[in-house]
């Protein structure tokens, strides 16, 4: 009796560890780099991590939906670049024609998000109706999106978007000026040059945008029928079909969610960097997105995964990147670390027991 009780408690502990280790791991990394990285644990660095993670968070969240259905979307990185270029061109040209910054930026965002649904529609139709394997269908879109982005941009960043774009992308909900109080939505006025350094930003807009959107879609995934069907399709596409779920239509929607998130990431990158740029080949954004989703507990076989944990996966990758940089470690170690975490995540997933209800 005592024997079985302890072993049960041990098993529950293992189940808990299997489900929550990434939260602990992220905490561990933050603490570690706070000690070894100069100036890592500062509002400025932490805000940098949040801002630079925002587009990656969106890419990974969209990717998670696709991976849960048992598919993969390799096109997200280049769709992001294409939409970044496209929306920056719209913003730049409208602004140059004399329209107001607000109008130019809004139209740029709307056009970018609207066009951003198309790659997903095409991917979804190829996968669902023409039974093209997701790897191949989205690899095709990977090339097409990149080609269009390079054609539109001639390979150069699109500059001269309204400067207000950057203010949104790098703005904060609140600004704290130590000793002089807090101001909302804009930095406090009347602060001279050197003192600006002391202002502490609280909650960047970019992370707020990404966070709210991810929270909404996480709700959809975990609480609604749409989410349930997403998991069911990943678990057994035949079971889903025979249960009367309209699988083809559902898959098309999921690939559209993925490319919509990629488009959001593209638009957000224009706001953060103040220009639109095609995605560099070497950046392998889609692979980092897949890695974050898998670190977050998903399986490429489909049927499981979580947006919250995917977000933690993204933060782990960002903290590794910025932490290594600030600790003065050669950048290539970052790739080794990411690879190691990925393998570790998969092993944990394999060896830790599943939760069993009595």
């Amino acid at each position: 009796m005592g024997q079985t009780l302890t072993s049960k408690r041990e098993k529950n502990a293992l189940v808990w560890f299997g489900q929550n280790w990434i939260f602990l791991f992220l905490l561990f990394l933050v603490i570690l780099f706070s000690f070894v990285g100069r100036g890592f644990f500062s509002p400025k660095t932490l805000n940098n991590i949040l801002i630079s993670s925002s587009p990656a968070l969106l890419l990974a969240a969209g990717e998670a939906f696709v991976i849960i259905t048992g598919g993969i979307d390799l096109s997200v990185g280049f769709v992001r670049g294409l939409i970044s270029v496209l929306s920056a061109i719209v913003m730049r040209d409208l602004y140059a024609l004399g329209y107001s910054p607000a109008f130019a930026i809004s139209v740029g965002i709307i056009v970018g998000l609207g066009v951003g649904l198309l790659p997903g529609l095409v991917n979804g139709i190829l996968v669902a109706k023409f039974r093209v394997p997701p790897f191949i269908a989205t690899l095709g879109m990977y090339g097409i999106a990149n080609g269009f982005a390079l054609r539109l941009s001639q390979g150069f960043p699109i500059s001269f978007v309204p400067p207000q774009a950057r203010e949104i992308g790098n703005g904060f909900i609140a600004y704290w000026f130590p000793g002089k109080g807090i101001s909302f939505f804009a930095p406090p006025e009347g602060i001279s040059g050197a003192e600006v350094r002391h202002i502490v930003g609280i909650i960047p807009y970019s992370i707020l945008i990404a966070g709210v959107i991810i929270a909404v879609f996480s709700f959809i995934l975990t609480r609604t029928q749409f989410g349930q069907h997403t998991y069911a399709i990943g678990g057994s596409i035949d079971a889903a079909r025979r249960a009367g779920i309209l699988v083809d239509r559902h898959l098309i929607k999921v690939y559209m969610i993925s490319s919509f998130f990629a488009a959001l990431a593209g638009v957000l990158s224009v706001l953060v960097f103040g220009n639109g740029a095609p995605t560099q080949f070497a950046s392998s954004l889609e692979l980092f997105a897949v890695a974050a989703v898998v670190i977050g507990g998903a399986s490429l076989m489909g049927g499981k995964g979580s947006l919250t944990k995917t977000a933690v996966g993204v933060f782990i990758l960002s903290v590794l990147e910025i932490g290594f940089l600030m600790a003065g470690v050669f950048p290539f170690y970052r790739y080794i670390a990411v690879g190691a975490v990925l393998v570790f995540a998969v092993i944990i997933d394999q060896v830790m027991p599943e939760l069993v209800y009595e």
Partner: protein
Amino acid sequence: MADQKVPLLEVKNIVKRFGGLVAVNRVSMEVYPGEVVALLGDNGAGKSTLIKVVSGVYPPDEGEIYFEGKEVKINNPMDAIQLGIETIYQDLALAENLNVYSNIFLGREKLKKWLGLVSVLDHDYMHDESKKVLDRLGIEIPSLKNKIKMLSGGQRQSVAISRSIYWKAKLLIMDEPTAALGVAEQRKVLDLVRTLKDQGVGVIIISHQLYDVFQVADRMIVLRRGEKVGERITKDTNSDEIVGLMVGAELVEDSKGEEV
């Protein structure tokens, strides 16, 4: 005596071809409410193809289907489900990554309003309703929150059957329901079939285990190379005769069954 009632299902002269191969050749059969009909035959005889015609997987090339006396067209699985024809396939058709009650409600989830705004899954309702149907059928599963992949073969089969029952199947089709099960679990499934029969459900069962079939079936239909070669009332026949029909030993065909 069954002939005085209207058959639940009647198929007439069903033909299904795959290219040049005639998988089912002018087969007719009927099933009455509360009756268990076994479909027997060697591998490749056309049993699975025949039931897939009824469950909407393959539309027939020729022939008619009547359900509760009315002619029906069954073009896809949804058509069959809406008539009250539920099928349990050899490979079960459960989503292993979802829990028991989610599978029972798969595709027909019960929803409720969240904050009066959005429709969300009503887990409590689905859990409790599933528990009721499992209890009614005498199925014991420790917790309905467990994923299907944590269950034994027999428990999975029971979940699949419960799903059909919950959704008010009038006709339940089972393709090799006991093939992958241990002895005790096989017995459970056969008990379940008897329970359904008592509740007036019609059952078509395909099985290689003649012993099982003799336990539960009221009537047996034997197919060979796509054709119906015999039909017997269970209590008027024996396994030698049935095996003879299955493999084609013509000498036993003179007994009292109504041949085609």
